């Protein structure tokens, strides 16, 4: 099963995605963390997410770039958080945005269950410098491709999941 969870900033995406994973099998539960920690704010964010999933039996795998290199046991239950960070690292930190989709395809083949968190950054109406516009376009493309692969997709609106595709794999 593959699920894609999207939503705006602070809307409860992570909480919902973790709740989803906590209803899935416990064996080989892996959290793939993609955010680079470079200041106090990102440290606080990581600490909050760690506390949030502390009792859910996750092994944490840091993978800010090159997702294909993540060592995942076949059949694992994986929470990938999140696509926007992975894309930013690939685009602005010497990687390649084009390798994200093939890596996720491969990951979803290998995993028993894969829950992916992405983000809605598309509605502020601001025209940004070219590199940021390119980032927005690429993230939108990825989201659209990932929905095609997903069995279930939902937008989380202030803690409320609004289904975009399929039905939730478990009662929440």
């Amino acid at each position: 099963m593959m699920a894609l969870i999207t939503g705006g900033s602070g809307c409860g995406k992570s909480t919902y995605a973790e709740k989803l994973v906590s209803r899935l099998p416990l064996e080989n539960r892996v959290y793939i963390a993609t955010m680079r920690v470079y200041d106090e704010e990102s440290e606080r964010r990581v600490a909050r997410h760690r506390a949030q999933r502390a009792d859910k039996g996750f092994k944490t795998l840091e993978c800010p770039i090159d997702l294909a290199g993540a060592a995942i046991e076949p059949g694992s239950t994986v929470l990938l958080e999140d696509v926007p960070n992975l894309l930013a690292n690939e685009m602005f930190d010497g990687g390649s945005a084009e390798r994200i989709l093939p890596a996720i395809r491969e990951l979803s083949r290998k995993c028993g269950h894969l829950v992916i968190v992405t983000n809605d950054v598309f509605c502020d109406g601001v025209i940004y410098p070219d590199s940021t516009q390119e980032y927005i376009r690429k993230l939108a493309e990825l989201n659209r491709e990932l929905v095609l692969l997903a069995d279930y997709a939902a937008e989380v609106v202030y803690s409320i999941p609004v289904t975009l595709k399929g039905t939730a794999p478990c009662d929440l």
Partner: protein
Amino acid sequence: MKLYIGGAYQGQEELAVRENPKAELIPDFHEKVREAILKGEDPKAFAQKLCLEKPDAVIVANEVGAGIVPMEASERAFREAVGRALCVIAQASDTVVRAVCGIGARIK
């Protein structure tokens, strides 16, 4: 408690008034969150207090979190805070309506 949300000027307030003519309305809740965090209040605690004090109110707010994460730290904090506060309000509400072009979709 009821919550009406939407992007800027999507008609959430008009909808809230029309559907709840007798209820106490709290408009522009996102701006109240801005004021609260400027005073150093925790956004979740601020929302929880409102839920306790006005359990029958109709809350109206703009969705502000669906953009590129701002460079400015205070703007980042604002969007995050509105999200956290509205999660609390949405959980406490029996009804959540999202307005797009004046049309309300009931999501809870």
